[in-house]
């Protein structure tokens, strides 16, 4: 063989060898935990994952969004260890997990979230009631312009919500749209379905006549949120840690992590860390409400 061919084949085999060597697992046992589910929780979960690496450098937590529904489905077919969910798991979903994995679903409440109703900085209206929200958001509702809510602001209400497999979408629909003739009311047509909680807030920030719902952890200084009361005329409550915890704020919920069966080993350590003051501090930093 000529020297040219020799060096070329040597070079190629060297690179291939290096590539293959890099595939062997690391010296210290690398542990991977998969977390999947709620888009509301995806930034919180990523913050937890990044902080936990400083606590235990060999534990890698891979975080994916996809909505609470996708996370629960992943739990059902075994493709995830932890399911982040911004709504409670339904009984039929629990059954399905038990059927496919043989284990009971274990629920860990890890944070509290208040669903804030965001409005643009140009909007002078400061409070709203659940009744009025119902007429704005539900199918067949009567309110389409800001003048109908209050004479202080004019314009057609531009509505921003979440995509339809989101736990947040589900929760808001159940608690705000309410029921009509015994059946759950759907959202009205014409709501922009944004992918992700941050997207909703960004659009409300850019659109003067906007109204949107998203987790309270996504508030920025460039956007307002409305105080919410149960009925028109009652005192309106601002989203906040105590209001959410005590239930005074009408649209507050718990954020959950679900596992198939009792968590063991590294997973249990991770969940315990999340529930510890260190993990709850991150909850507060991300703008959600810690459990205590």
């Amino acid at each position, binding site marked *: 063989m000529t020297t040219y061919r020799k060096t070329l084949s040597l070079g190629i085999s060297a690179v291939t060898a*290096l*590539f293959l*060597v*890099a*595939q062997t*697992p690391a010296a210290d046992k690398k542990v*991977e935990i998969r977390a999947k589910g709620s888009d509301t929780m995806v*930034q919180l979960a*990523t913050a937890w994952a*990044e902080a936990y*690496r400083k606590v235990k450098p060999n534990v*890698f937590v*891979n*975080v*994916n*969004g996809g909505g609470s529904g996708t996370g629960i489905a992943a739990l059902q077919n075994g493709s995830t260890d932890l399911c982040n969910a911004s709504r409670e798991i339904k009984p039929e979903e629990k059954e399905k997990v038990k059927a496919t994995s043989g284990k009971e679903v274990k629920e860990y409440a890890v944070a509290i979230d208040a669903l804030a109703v965001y409005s643009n900085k140009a909007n002078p209206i400061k409070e709203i009631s659940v009744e009025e929200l119902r007429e704005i958001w539900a199918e067949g509702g009567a309110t389409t312009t800001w003048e109908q809510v209050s004479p202080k602001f004019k314009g057609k209400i531009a509505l921003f919500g979440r995509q339809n497999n989101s736990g947040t979408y589900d929760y808001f629909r159940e608690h705000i749209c309410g029921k009509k003739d015994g059946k759950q009311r759907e959202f009205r047509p014409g709501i922009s379905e*944004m*992918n*992700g*909680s*941050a*997207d909703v*807030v*960004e659009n409300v920030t850019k659109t003067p006549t906007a109204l949107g719902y998203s987790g309270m952890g*996504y508030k*920025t200084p460039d956007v307002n949120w409305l105080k919410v009361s149960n009925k028109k005329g009652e005192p309106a409550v601002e989203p906040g840690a105590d209001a959410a915890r005590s239930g005074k704020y009408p649209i507050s919920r718990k954020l959950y992590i679900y596992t198939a069966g009792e968590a063991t080993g590294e997973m249990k350590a991770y969940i315990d860390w999340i529930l510890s003051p260190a993990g709850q501090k991150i909850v507060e930093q991300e703008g959600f409400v810690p459990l205590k």
Partner: protein
Amino acid sequence: MNAATNANPFAASEFEQRKNRRAIVMKWVLFGFCAILVIPLVGILLDIFIKAAPVLSFDYLWENPVNKGKQGGLWAPLMGTFYLVIGSLLFVAPIGVFAAVYMNEYARDGWINRIIGITVTSLAGVPSIVHGLFGVGAFVLFMLPAINRVVADPNDRSTKWEAGLLTASLTIAVMNLPVVIASTREALGAVPQAFREACWNLGATRWQTIRTVVLPNSLSGILTGIILVVSRAAGETAPILFTGATFFRFVEDQGWGKIFPYRPAEPFMAMSMHLNIISNQISQMPEKMKFGCAAVLIGLILFINSFAIMLRVWLRGRKRW
């Protein structure tokens, strides 16, 4: 009489002068159309690079994204795109070139050629999201479980193959197949038939002719097609959305893990996916980071394409016929 003999018989009549003026007007209108195309483009590119300027630096390319992309650099997505491109080239280059060889050398002027031509055009026109759906249906949901049944140990999760570089490369390969076939075919067609006839006259078989004369002489066109494929693979998002790209993945900050961060069977980060997510899904993302990612991606694509154009011009200059 004087006026008649002094008049220039070839001068344009009133009617013709009007038509000529209209022709000149139309020429400038059409130039205006070109300008409408070019000027906003240049303006947009300038805007992006100006807004990205505070961020662009060598460190920006060398560091990993930190804090969900709000700080740090673009190394992990760049590496992912790089490996995706290489992976898809491994599949598409041989198949595409051989398919064009078949169409041009073996099956000329037949009904099969026409059918293959139609399928190549149809394949080229398939929307990118449909390629993504195909990737999910064929590779993630059909090929991976089949591989896992053979290779994976149900009790050890780390041996399970997931949607990642392999499935995404295959999907992008299928998407780029028509481009390689079309450009290779053009390149092969440009080789004069006289070359082939001369070879056959000397007693060479068809395959010998192809590998000694036809392929080497059409190398410029083939390379151009392959470089186009590189730029498409680097820029596409929809096919890799569900077949392996992920937004967030831990990548080593130094050592071998930094150069070879991804294995073929696990999810990877990619530039296009990164831009997609940081544009509107992360709250309080600084504008300059968004524009920085867009600028790097555009810069990469334009660089690859300019390289292809220069290569094409240079190789065409070297042609000996």
